[in-house]
């Protein structure tokens, strides 16, 4: 009996097997390569996990996480607020948008890490320079996404609203904001990812603290086990933040108007 249900069950098991094989090969490869290479090059997964344990118990990882996340949260939050406001502003004021567009495009294309030395010379080390770097990394995706959303508001919606003598405030509340939010969320997802790159880069060069500077110290000591442990944590953070961003995006995409 190989009915459609049996076939569905089979393909389900096959999918699970695919994922399992992927993970198993990765874990075994990590362990084997680690066992057969010098300790400063690569260490087995088990050693990495015990390094992770000691990094947590001696407090260096929790401290670094706290320091990194205060920078990240402030920088990304600023980028979202400023990006959303300027994005809507540029969308609603055509001449302003057209006037500044080439410069914004050039800035969007700028590899922001290259600005770090200038920032260092201008305002030195510390919390705010790092926040500025995170902001610079995550501002532009929010601004561009918001602008694209607000620009694409169907003119009929505004016409109908005007025909019913809707006040400017109500237009914003019922048309502009609901229409733009799904686009904004796409920008937010990108900002979450880019902000993380900004955070790590800023900590490489602008800090005594945070995950980035932890990595630099460890690489100078050829502490590969610790480095792999921190990298694992950073990967995990990246994956979690992406999942959060995608959840937001999907939630709001439900009422995105599709034509």
């Amino acid at each position, binding site marked *: 009996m190989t009915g459609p249900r049996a076939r569905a069950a089979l393909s389900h098991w096959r999918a699970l097997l695919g994922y399992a094989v992927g993970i198993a090969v990765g874990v075994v490869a990590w362990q084997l390569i680690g066992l057969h290479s010098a300790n400063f090059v690569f260490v087995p997964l088990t050693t990495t996990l015990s390094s992770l344990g000691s990094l947590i118990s001696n407090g260096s990882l929790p401290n670094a996480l706290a320091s990194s996340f205060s920078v990240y949260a402030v920088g990304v939050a600023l980028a979202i607020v400023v990006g959303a406001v300027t994005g809507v502003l540029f969308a609603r004021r055509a001449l302003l948008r057209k*006037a500044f567009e080439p410069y914004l495009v050039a800035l969007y294309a700028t590899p922001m890490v290259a600005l770090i030395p200038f920032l260092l010379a201008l305002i030195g080390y510390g919390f705010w320079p790092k926040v500025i770097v995170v902001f610079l990394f995550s501002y532009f995706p929010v601004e561009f996404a918001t602008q694209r959303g607000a620009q694409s508001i169907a003119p009929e919606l505004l016409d109908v609203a005007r025909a019913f003598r809707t006040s400017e405030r109500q237009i914003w509340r019922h048309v502009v904001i609901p229409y733009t939010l799904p686009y904004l969320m796409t920008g937010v997802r990108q900002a979450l990812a880019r902000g993380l790159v900004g955070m790590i880069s800023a900590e*490489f060069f602008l800090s005594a603290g945070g995950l980035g500077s932890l*990595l*630099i110290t460890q690489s100078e000591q050829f502490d590969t086990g610790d*480095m792999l442990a921190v990298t694992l944590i950073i990967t995990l953070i990246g*994956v979690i933040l992406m999942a959060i961003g995608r959840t937001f995006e999907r939630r709001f995409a439900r009422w995105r108007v599709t034509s």
Partner: protein
Amino acid sequence: MSATGRNLPAAAGALPEVRQGQRPSVMRMRLAPGRRAGGPNGPGEDSGVEAEAARRERTQVFLARVAAGLGILVLWQACAATLAPGYIARPLGILGQVPAVFGDQSFWSAAGSTLLAVVEGLIIAVVIGTVIGLIMGRLRDVDRALRLYVDSFYAMPLVALVPLLTVWFGYTPLTRLVVVVIEAVLPIIFSVAEGARSLPAQFTDVARTYRAPWWRVWAGIVLPASLPYLLGGIDLAIGRALVGAVVAEFIASLNGLGYYILFNVRSFQENRAMLALVLLVVFALAVRGLVSLFVRRELPWYRAG
């Protein structure tokens, strides 16, 4: 927006730009006047009036752009002159350094070093990324086995790998090349896999009906159909590749534009450093411009979507 505009892929970073049939705004800027200028020889009796209005609008936009640009420069110059110490970069200072920097052998050697590494890395990433992407897009089992790794590396800040890579490959240009390849390959894998996955089943069905050998299906159908996605991936990859190259140069002190910036800022020559930054931006815009030019000229069917 038929084949290109379906469900947003989970990971398509900035892809929506491409997906919605819009080119990055550089292209829109350059396209817009040309398209409007098509009015005069178009049909319709009021095209002269339209052309006149379009011309007036274009002049207005141009003037607004010049005014905005000058405004930014004047404000920058004024702030730097009144508030900041003398070594901070400012427009007039940068202008004054142009002859010195352009005549400087070390600037061009730095530029060549970085840009060649980025181009080389992009080419390697395109080859690897296309192969992996096509396989992941067409073979579900491979996709399941690799998905976790591709997803995780795409979600993480890859610059975090640079310290580890300096341990593996030393403080050498090889480290920079590896960083560039890793940064660039992920968006390419992602987009190409998405393109190969969204290939309409009729295409492969027809090929199978005519008993096309598998390699002709891959080379003749799957690859060309994924080409626009590959270009979308390259568009995303270029910015990431530059960030990777600069971070690698900072950390490993390698000859290149990133290190040129670092060195000159540290020796209070910010105006010179700024010119290196400008070159990086121009390079990024040029590559993206070339990509969209290629899409427009060679793949017109893609834009029609």
